[in-house]
Structure formats: C-alpha cells, structure tokens
C-alpha cells in the first residue's frame, strides 16, 4: 500500500475516485485572463458600492437627519460636566460661600431644575448644621 493509499484508507471509494480525478496539473492562466477577471471583479464591487445608498434613499435621509439632530443636541445642550461636584469651591476662593452659589447661578442659567440645584447649594451654605447639611 502506497503512502497516498494509506491517507485515503478511511474515505469512501467514490470520494477517493473524485479526488484522484481532480488531481490534475493546474491549467495555465494567461495575463489576459487574469486582467479580465480583475476587471470583472472591480466592476462587480463598484456596482455594489453605488447601490447601497441609491437603493434606500429614504433610509439614507432618515439616518442623515438623526445624525444631524444628535449633533445639534450635543452642540446646543448645556455644557455641564456632570463629574464636577457642584457643592464645591467653584470660584477657588479657598472656602465655600455664597460667591460659589453666584458662580454656579451664572454658569447654569435660570431653568427651573437648575434653580432648584442652586437653591439647594445656597441652603447648604447657610445651614447651621455642623456638617454643612441643611437641617
């Protein structure tokens, strides 16, 4: 038994026959054939690139609108760093007092939610509790 026959030993005979028949020398690919295949491939994929958006113009418009809205919200929304604690020495005076509340009020605006935060900060500033918390 040859080495090849040992490798085929566990395969079905019809599969072995098909594999043997396919085991032929590689046919020569000329440069012309190679160029034509390359051109066909390029034409195929360029068509795919064009049709992604041209096939679904409505979805493209929706996606563009959503992206634009997201950008507008990011640009026009309050520029507040949520990681910065607001009950702090915001004006770097060395202590927390009403001047920090003034600083916060000027930077946060007069919206109702912001006003509540500012009032809470001011109440903490004047609190008589030892920890500075409102009683």
């Amino acid at each position, binding site marked *: 038994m040859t080495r090849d026959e040992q490798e085929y030993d566990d395969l079905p005979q019809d599969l072995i026959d098909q594999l043997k028949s396919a085991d032929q020398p590689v046919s020569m690919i000329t440069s012309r054939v190679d160029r034509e295949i390359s051109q066909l491939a390029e034409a195929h994929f360029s068509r795919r690139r064009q049709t992604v958006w041209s096939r679904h113009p409505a979805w493209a418009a929706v996606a563009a609108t959503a992206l634009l809205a997201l950008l507008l919200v990011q640009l026009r929304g309050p520029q507040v760093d949520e990681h910065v604690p607001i009950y702090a020495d915001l004006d770097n005076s060395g202590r927390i007092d*009403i001047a920090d509340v*003034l600083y916060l009020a000027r930077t946060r605006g007069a919206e109702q939610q912001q006003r509540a935060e500012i*009032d809470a900060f001011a*109440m903490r500033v*004047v609190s*008589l*509790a030892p920890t500075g918390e409102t009683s």
Partner: protein
Amino acid sequence: MRALIVSLILMGSCCLGQAFAEDDSVRFSAMDIYLTSAEPVAAWQFELNDHHGLMKVVGVEKGESAAYARVPYYDREAVRLGEADRIVVADYSLADVARLPSDRTRIATVHLMLSGDDDADFNLFLITATTYDGLATDASISFEVQTGSEQ
C-alpha cells in the same frame, strides 16, 4: 409679599410672647443689617450670634435693594424649631451691575427673641461680599436695632 412676611413674623412673635408671658425676661427685637461697599455688590453673606447666648432668631426679612427681591437664604428649619441661637444669612443677585446696591444698604432685618436680664453681646461679621465680577470687595457690615441704637 413683604407685608405677609412681616405679618407672619409678628404673629409668630405674639405667639411666642404669649408663651413666655409670665417670664418677663423674654423680649423681642428687630435688627437691621447694613452693608457698606464702595462697589456694587452681587453677593453677600454674614453671620450673627450673641456671645452671651441670649438670642434666638425668629425670622429674617429681605433688605431694601430691588436687585435682591426675595427673602435671603438662611436656615429656616433651625429658626422654625427655635434652635437658631446664631444665624448665617446670604443672598446673591443676577441683576445688571447698574442695579446692584452700593454705599450703605440695608440688606436684611433679623428678628430676635432675647432671654435673660443681661444685655446681649452681638457678634456680627461679614463672611463675604462679592462684586459683579465675582471678586471679593472690601465692604463693612453693621447693625442697627430698630429702637434706634447703632453699633
């Protein structure tokens, strides 16, 4: 609004006065607080206490400047519970610099209940006064008891 606040304070004072009617050592007083500053003031904060421990704050009124239209910030809960043997009062204004008060301005009136026969030894000090630009200004603070005496 101011009339309502004054009425509430007076009613509270009357109630407290009746409660201590048999104790002739309890009396009530109103103290006007004045801030004097060469520059317009956008925020201020002061503390008032009594070295003898005779006072309890029973109310705080706003001052005379239109730039500070609301009652200033103070610990209302401590006042309500009768625990305010000292008080920290503060306020800020977002008004234009032209509307901010300067010179001598009444910034608040503090209503007090005083107990004991001794005179109170008030200690009033300015914690901060801030200009429109957010900088501390060299201001001074004084008080005037509404009977007319000034310290």
